[in-house]
């Protein structure tokens, strides 16, 4: 007899495998699954939170250009169920940044040290659309480990605000921040700190 995973454990494992594939192949799109929970906010965010957070982890959430406070309903819901600690941005291991107005806040997240670069935060960034077909799409050209030569990632025009903060966050490799871009439909793309990004027009 083999033990069965609970639906939540299954969703956490699927989320992790998606994130692992996206980090291993930056620019490749994955699709996140929502765990079977009635949760505030998009379901894929709950999946990432349950897959990565526990009592050892500090989390920070930003919305409309500001960090959410500890008594924010979404923060309270998350910390209660994942047992994660709500912390200030410089102490966060995981951060959720919900709109382009939050782009400057990326500079406040920890980048680790030369000896312990893994202490750099993972930032989950919500964008409008990944694989955007619009004529005014922002196209990022990606190079680095996990990419055979280069690949293109087309985002909605507003997502262009994230480029400069992401580039700044990896100027001192191996220190840096690892970014997961997620769109409204739960599609995601990994931008580990090794990925070099340049912008080009269509």
């Amino acid at each position: 007899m083999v033990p069965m995973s609970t639906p939540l454990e299954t969703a956490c494992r699927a989320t992790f495998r998606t994130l692992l594939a996206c980090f291993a192949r930056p620019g490749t799109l994955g699709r996140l699954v929502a765990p079977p929970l009635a949760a505030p906010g998009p379901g894929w965010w709950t999946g990432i939170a349950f897959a990565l957070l526990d009592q050892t982890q500090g989390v920070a959430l930003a919305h409309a250009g500001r960090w959410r406070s500890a008594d924010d309903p979404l923060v309270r819901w998350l910390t209660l169920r994942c047992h994660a600690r709500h912390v200030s941005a410089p102490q966060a291991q995981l951060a959720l940044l919900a709109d382009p107005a939050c782009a400057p806040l990326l500079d406040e997240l920890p980048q680790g040290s030369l000896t312990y670069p893994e202490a750099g935060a993972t930032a989950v960034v919500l964008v409008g659309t990944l694989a955007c077909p619009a004529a005014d799409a922002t196209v990022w050209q990606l190079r680095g480990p996990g990419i055979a030569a280069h690949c293109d990632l087309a985002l909605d025009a507003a997502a262009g605000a994230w480029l400069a903060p992401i580039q700044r966050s990896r100027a001192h490799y191996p220190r840096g921040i690892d970014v997961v871009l997620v769109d409204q439909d739960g599609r995601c793309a990994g931008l580990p700190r090794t990925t070099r990004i340049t912008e080009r027009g269509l």
Partner: protein
Amino acid sequence: MHELHYTYGLIDEDSKREVRRALLKAVALPGHQVPFASRDLPIARGWGTGGLQITLALLAPEDILKVIDQGDDESVNAVNLRRLIAQTTGVALTAVTADATVIQTRHRIPEERLRADQILVLQVPMVDPLRWVEPNLERATVMHGEADYGRMWVYMYESVIRAGDLRIATQYPVIVADRYLMDTTPIPRWDVPKLHQADALFLFGAGREKRIYAVPPHTSVAPLEFEDVPFRVEYTPGQCCARCGCGDSFLTSHAVSGADGATRWVTTCSDTSFCAARQAVS
């Protein structure tokens, strides 16, 4: 009814979550050793617990698993790890490299080129190549942080001066993504080029030393070498497998007794499933 006292994949969800976080950081920092807690398992540390924890944190019921030890699907370590993983996850098992989605291995990389949808998990006994020149872990960590690998180059140079060659048979040191010095685990030099610009993802787990590291696909993996003393793989011209006749695979020698009672050495492919497939078509 028999009651199960363990969860899917044996280790608890908190432990899996910690391994998963370490894996994501390891992939984001190719070649860098990421610490993790390394839980106790029903096998002794040093017998593949690092690789086992990675595999258990990875496996989904739809995965197909292959476990090899020194290229052999049927050696003791492989059989026991496979049995433990199968009993606690129920995943399908295979000996055919092409059929597997996750391959856990000790000391070999399969002969067939791995595909993009495959993950290779390597068991690591000694995690830090700097240990040859700096046994103090804290100082070695600082050396990695500063990419201070001068003493390693001196070690390689002295090896050439004393032995006339780069006298390293296994655990050949490599530079990953032009940044981190990495131990390739005791894979033979034959397998080291397979890490360079590969299609598959390589994950390394050291359970005893509590470290995880990774080489993503399409990543530069350069063995340490000098312009006038290049890195070379093992190769003996004319030697081939006694079973399948392959002259382009990693070979191992073992003693067999003949009908006359005399013992002689026979050379065969180290990768048994690769060898069996070649024998089947010939």
